[in-house]
């Protein structure tokens, strides 16, 4: 379309806009009924009253938009593997950039991340997108979500032979493969909090206990983990436990990164995170004042997993990525960027700081079927407890 077209009378402006308003975004749409009606007879003589300069200003704005869109639509020649994950994975300090670099070296492809707030959002998003999803691989669900995820029928078997893992329990699953694991814990600053609670019971029942930051179980896997942790310990009395805890919850954030960010800014003395989080402060910041509070009842276990989608556009690349995820190249990135226990790296290869972390045993865990059956009900129970 020549530029002079844009410079004619305003009705064209509208038809051009309509072209872009149409979701197909093709130039064809610009030939709207209005444009066909716009015979030059009357409009040309009228044109001078609506100054051309003014329209030109608007049109240059439009062109800007058009080129902006064209630029984003520019496709790369290499095949693109699309991985849906949570945002702390893809952040500058997370494992994302290093994993991308290492994988792209061997795959001759482009690895694209789509980052959501946290793990539970991943599953919701996939359900919302259904079979039309653009994801090839989803990385960041956990064992509390796997049964529910399988039931959607959106995932494909990975077809990769079993491999001995470092997980506490033997792993055998034809769809999901683990990449790391950890235990939920409340992390605090020893300089600020002298008497941390020694058990979940103390945290819940001590009315003058420390304030905490937690995550929403509807979006975040640590949030979901805490909900299950409390459920495991309190059973039917979980609602009362939450009501007890409620006055000391500073905020319920959508994802882990927000809550941890607020904790580091000093908004609350304790935050829900992992037993492995202090390793970050020891290794990256050379600070040993952050530590996890060990609870007598034990800590809830989380295994983070990935899987490929049944409708993946790049099934071979997706499988390659899952294989790569089990390799040492990927696994050795995890301890010092995702700050979790890698699933396929022997204990001896862990950084030294990991030896100083608290022992989370006994590990608490619901079966994936139990969680799948009850997650909605328990979440609603949690919502009701928090709403009062």
């Amino acid at each position, binding site marked *: 379309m020549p530029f002079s077209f844009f410079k004619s009378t305003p009705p064209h402006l509208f038809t051009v806009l309509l072209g872009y308003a149409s*979701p197909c975004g093709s130039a064809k749409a610009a030939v709207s009924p209005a444009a066909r009606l716009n015979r030059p007879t009357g409009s040309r003589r009228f044109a001078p009253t*609506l100054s051309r300069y003014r329209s030109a200003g608007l049109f240059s704005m439009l062109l800007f938009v058009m080129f902006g869109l064209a630029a984003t639509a520019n496709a790369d020649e290499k095949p693109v593997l699309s991985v849906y994950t949570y945002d702390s994975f893809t952040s500058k300090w997370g494992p994302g950039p290093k994993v991308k670099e290492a994988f792209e070296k061997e795959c001759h492809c482009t690895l694209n991340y789509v980052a959501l707030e946290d793990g539970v959002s991943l599953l919701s998003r996939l*359900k*919302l997108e259904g079979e*039309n999803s653009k994801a090839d691989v989803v990385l960041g669900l956990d064992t509390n979500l796997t049964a529910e995820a399988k039931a959607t029928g959106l995932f494909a078997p990975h077809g990769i032979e079993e491999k001995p893992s470092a997980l506490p329990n033997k792993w055998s699953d034809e769809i999901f493969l683990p990449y790391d694991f950890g235990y939920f814990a409340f992390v605090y600053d020893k300089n600020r909090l002298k008497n941390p609670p020694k058990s979940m019971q103390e945290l819940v029942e001590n009315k003058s206990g420390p304030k905490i930051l937690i995550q929403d179980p509807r979006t975040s896997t640590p949030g979901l983990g805490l909900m299950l942790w409390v459920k495991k310990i309190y059973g039917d009395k979980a609602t009362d436990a939450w009501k007890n805890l409620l006055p000391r919850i500073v905020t319920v954030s959508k994802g882990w990164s927000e809550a941890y960010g607020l904790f580091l800014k000093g908004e609350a003395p304790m935050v829900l995170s992992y037993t492995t989080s202090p390793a970050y402060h020891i290794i990256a910041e050379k600070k040993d004042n952050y530590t996890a509070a060990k609870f007598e009842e034990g800590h809830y276990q989380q295994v983070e997993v990935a899987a490929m989608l049944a409708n993946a556009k790049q099934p071979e690349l997706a499988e390659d990525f899952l294989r790569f995820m089990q390799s040492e190249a990927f696994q050795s990135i995890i301890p010092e960027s995702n700050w979790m226990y890698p699933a396929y790296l022997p204990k001896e290869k862990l950084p030294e700081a990991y030896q100083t972390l608290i022992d989370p045993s006994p590990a608490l865990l619901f079966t994936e079927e139990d969680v799948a059956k009850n997650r909605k009900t328990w979440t609603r129970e949690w919502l009701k407890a928090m*709403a009062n």
Partner: protein
Amino acid sequence: MKIRLGYFVLFILLAFVSLPLLSLFLADNSLGSAYRDTTPLNIWQDAYLRGVILFSLKQAALSTLLSVSLGLLLAWSFAHFGDFPFRTLILGLFGLPLVVPAIVAVLGIVSVYGAQGWLPLGSKLYGLTGILLAHLFFNLPLSVRLLLPIWNHIPDQHWRISVQLGMSRKEQWTFIEWPAIRESLPGISLLIFMLCLTSFAVVLTLGGGPRSTTLEVAIYQSLRFDFDPTQAVILALIQLALSVLLALIAARFSHLPDIDPDLNIHADTRHLSAHWSHALFIFLGVVFIATPLLAMLIDALKGPLGEVLGDANLWRAMGFSILIGLSAAFISISLGWFLLSASAELAYQKKTRMAQLLELSGSVIYVVPPLVIGTGLFILLSKHINVFDWAIAIVILINGLMGLPFVIRTLGPALRQHTQKYQRLCANLNIHGWQRFIKIDLPLLRKPLGLSAALVTAMAMGDLGVIALFGTPQTSTLSLLLYHRLSAYQMPQAAITALILLLSCLLAFWLLERFIGGKSNAGG
């Protein structure tokens, strides 16, 4: 032909609203929801739903009470203080919140009252306190601007008589001012109540925790957090019932208040006595409105400008915002144009009822909240397509619909008058269709056209509602980007984004009003 086009637009509007609604009613209730067994009868028994409904009403009622009572105090002070230097400037400042996007105002509120702000309220800000502050920021100036003209409508002889009778300030209030105000109060309160009940961006950012969630935010959460369409449908239907109820109540008042742009003093104010407390109230009002904007500006200028401006996401989001704004304006103006010309034609033929119906249909969005339509569309479309791919198109359509009432209000009166004047002439000269639009209508109606284009564009650009439902990091607008920065507590970056959003809205408004509307009074 004109009338047929009008009916056609009416049909499109009805279809666009009723199809999503229908899909809500017919939604598949078996999708693994925790609400499988909910019926209208036991909604109230559900503690979560009950909490959400009660909180929605509570925050709206409190916001209305605060905005109207404080607004009354301020309007009273303005009326009594008479003319003073900066009066126009201050009232202009009070007009600003009407054009500031909600999400930008939220950022301003956080900059002032947040943990690192000038007047830290601590964690109390997130919840009812913050929501009330933000709603007050928007609705206090609105109520002042709605109430102030009332003083102009009080006849001068009332004041003279009151002085002759030696009435005290209290007696003046009881016998002269209050009776005049009392009449408009229900209408103004209802308008503000409706605005607060459907406010989304404010509650999403400052509330949203399980304790402070309104229906609109709960709808968003059930779709995006829980993937529980059934719950979303229930909530959307409750919201719909509430809005319809309010619309019915509103219909009982002959007319809802209109914003009177003329805030000059016409009444003879010599008889009104000024008091130092009036000045104090005005000063406090100015401080309350100005500080959030000022804090945002200062935070933005101190922030990492280079980092934010160098981010490609920002520019892509800006492109989408501009695209959405301009396209939505195009849609509302063309729909509005066809509706209004048909309505004017009908009125010309003395078919008043049909004319009114057509004009009224443009305000359908007041009855069916945008988020309810969005939810319906989401459920209707998600089975067939990846709704996230179509985000921008859907957002444009719904924003276009949201702009329609404004087009009808700004363009309607002018077009009606214009038709009365030129209808016969055009018929005589056999000028019709496209030619008439270009030669006759457009030059004479440039001003209202430009104003409505500017209004709708600026509003759609700053809107954070439906885009939150459909947007993704790849299809983010400036307002959604700002929301993400805010919820990640990246305050310096958020302040800059807010400033850019505000400036682009104002710039778009100014450009469109000038370029389409023209400098001089072209008529209309």
